[in-house]
């Protein structure tokens, strides 16, 4: 036990002192911020104003098109169609909307054409169609002698209120928030496993190539060394995450104080409008906040820690045995793929299946399978999972971990003393019998 502590300490210090660790710890938050700022800047950049020529032979629609920041509509109904089409080719205009002179609205519906060099965005075409359809509908109503005003008044806007059987009110859009919370935790677990699993593997390979391994294992059991490595590296990783969390929190604090002042200064004019808007939505926002607090926060955090440890230990024992089996990192690729696959599968299942049907068969099964359970179950938990399922999946996870670590230790024990040849899967299985 004492030796295990020594190994953990050494591994931890070796990782933390490493230059790349220090650089990663303090540079990557900066990088994140930089990327965020860059994306934000890009999205605030104004899109080029696009001019759309409208050739409306009926003259009934052209005034329905209102220019905005993105699109400017020009009425060119008097200009010859041929000249217009040429100007499109010459790119004087972005596009040309042709509404032919057809008296029959039913025929007109199919006769409208949009000409352009580039393929237009789907949203833009939808907008155009909406405008024309609306106009035609109104005309149809009028032709049929219906009162448009009455029809508009008669239109119902139904919004179904969601409620749980327990009687509490639920909110739409909450599922999205839940999947974001669960997804963030699941994704974090995956990232951590890949980052630090790789670190464990590299550290094993380093001991192998520097040939110190035989000296070490004449003093300690290979199993102790492997576990010491895994734990020491994970502590370094947790420290890194803590630093990131701390940096993130302080950055948020700084930003919020800065923005608080900012908002107060400009609040005068817009304030009233905003207050009015808030008055309407206030109830709803409060409910969202209430609903967020109603999420099983304790369960989420405790499960996160347990799945985090279980998942990381399970995968890093794979990583450690792969490191032991190969002589250098390039040889490790063939063994790494089958390890990363279930992780990615977990994330996909989380985002696609859990979101649609958090308690469906697929989601439930994959939240039990130990290789995917840390990710999938983390994503399910915000939706409320029965306790027995969580416990069962944790038991399975840790049970598998102990099984895997036993195999991994065997491969590790044999592998660390093997040099020179690139092992195959078959050989790894043979090593289990040594």
């Amino acid at each position, binding site marked *: 036990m004492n*030796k295990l502590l*020594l*190994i953990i300490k*050494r591994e931890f210090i*070796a990782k933390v002192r*490493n230059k790349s660790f220090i650089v990663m710890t303090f540079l990557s938050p900066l990088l994140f911020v930089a990327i965020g700022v860059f994306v934000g800047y890009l999205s605030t950049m104004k899109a080029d104003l696009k001019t759309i020529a409208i050739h409306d032979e009926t003259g009934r629609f052209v005034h329905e098109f209102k220019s905005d920041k993105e699109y400017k509509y020009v009425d060119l109904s008097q200009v010859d169609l041929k000249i217009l089409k040429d100007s499109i080719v010459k790119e004087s205009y972005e596009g040309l909307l042709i509404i032919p002179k057809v008296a029959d609205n039913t025929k007109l519906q199919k006769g409208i054409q949009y000409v352009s060099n580039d393929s237009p965005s789907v949203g833009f075409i939808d907008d155009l169609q909406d405008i024309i359809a609306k106009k035609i509908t109104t005309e149809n109503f009028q032709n049929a002698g219906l009162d448009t005003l009455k029809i508009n008044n008669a239109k119902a806007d139904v919004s179904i209120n969601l409620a749980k059987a327990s009687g509490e009110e639920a909110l739409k859009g909450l599922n999205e928030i839940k999947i974001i919370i669960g997804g963030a935790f699941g994704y974090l677990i995956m990232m951590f496993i890949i980052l630090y699993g790789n670190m464990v593997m590299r550290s094993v390979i*380093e*001991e192998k190539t*520097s*040939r*110190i391994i*035989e*000296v*070490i*294992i*004449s*003093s*300690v*059991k290979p199993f102790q060394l492997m576990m010491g490595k895994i734990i020491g590296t994970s502590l370094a990783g947790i420290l890194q995450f803590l630093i990131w969390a701390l940096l993130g929190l302080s950055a948020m604090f700084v930003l919020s104080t800065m923005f608080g002042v900012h908002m107060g200064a400009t609040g005068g004019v817009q304030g009233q409008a905003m207050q009015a808007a808030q008055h309407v939505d206030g109830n709803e926002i409060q409910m969202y906040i209430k609903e967020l607090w109603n999420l099983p926060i304790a369960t989420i955090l405790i499960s996160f820690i347990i799945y985090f440890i279980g998942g990381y230990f399970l995968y890093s024992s794979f990583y450690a045995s792969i490191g032991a089996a190969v002589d250098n990192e390039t040889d490790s690729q063939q063994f790494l793929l089958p390890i990363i696959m279930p992780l990615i599968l977990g994330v996909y299942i989380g985002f696609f299946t859990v979101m649609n049907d958090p308690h469906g068969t697929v989601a439930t099964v994959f939240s039990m399978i130990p290789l995917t359970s840390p990710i999938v179950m983390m994503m399910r938990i915000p939706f409320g999972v029965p306790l027995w399922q969580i416990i069962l999946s944790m038991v399975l996870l840790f049970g598998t971990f102990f099984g895997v670590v036993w195999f991994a230790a065997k491969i590790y*024990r044999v592998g660390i*003393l093997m*040099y020179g040849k690139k092992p195959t899967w078959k050989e790894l299985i*043979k090593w289990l*019998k*040594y």
Partner: protein
Amino acid sequence: MFSLTFFLVQIAIFTQTKNGMSNILEVNKVVKQYGDYTALNEVSLTVPKGSIYGLLGPNGAGKTSLIRIINQITMPDSGEIILDGEKLKPEDVSVIGYMPEERGLYKTMRVGEQCLYLAQLKGLSKAEAKHELDYWFDRLEIQGWWNKKIQELSKGMAQKIQFVVTVLHKPKLLILDEPFSGFDPVNANLIKDEIIELNKQGTSVIFSTHRMESVEEMCDHIALIHKSNKLIEGKLTDVKKQYRTNDYEVGILTNNVEGLMYDLSQKFTLSQTDFKSLNDELKLQINLGTATPNELLNTLVQRGQVTHFVEKIPSVNDIFIQTVSEK
């Protein structure tokens, strides 16, 4: 006072011997298989306390497998290891010092930290380790290296550190696999002297090597392993007696070569040989057969002036090559 201590030590050694604990290590019928390949086939060895024991054998004979089993890096399939009278147990790693053939250190770790770490893994407390390190760094005159990283040291310097790490915890049994490979002659000599010094202080040493001259120079016991089997074991002098051929190298100044050759060929088997000499004499290698050295000497003396008369003792190298090629 000193003589009393000496006396007590003598008694202690005596009683130990009486209890059958004169062997630091006994290997009993150890078998190790890797898949279908047998690396060790019922190998038994006895390493007496205080000896320098040479473990010889060609590449792939099973030496390293055996050494790894003694160091509990791998487990034997069957057979047992007795260390200092007791069955080998996990805690015994702290009384064994092992320098593997493939050696290395953490390249980016500082010398001092690294030595402390490895010594602590062997069970020393930090203070003890520090104390011992100071002693060894002084002794090998490498005090200035404490804060250097291994990657800043030359290969020979790193080897010195490796040796220090091996002996830091004052092991009862020192196992050295090819200890002199990678050392320049000066450092090899230095390390050799340190090994001999440790041996004088009571450390038993097993070393496995291909360098026969160092075996000849240092070892008092040897064992030869070939193709997973032990072929020879014993005191170096006993083994040599066993392999003596009764060949004598003779140098003689004579006027009557033909007469001498006639006389000799009546009783002995002759062959040509060469050795360094200042005389321009006739050099012969003569096998005594069943005769005694004196009979040969008498025959020689009657025919001329004897300038050289030496029994040709088989070198470890000869024994090694002979045994290995026989099998």
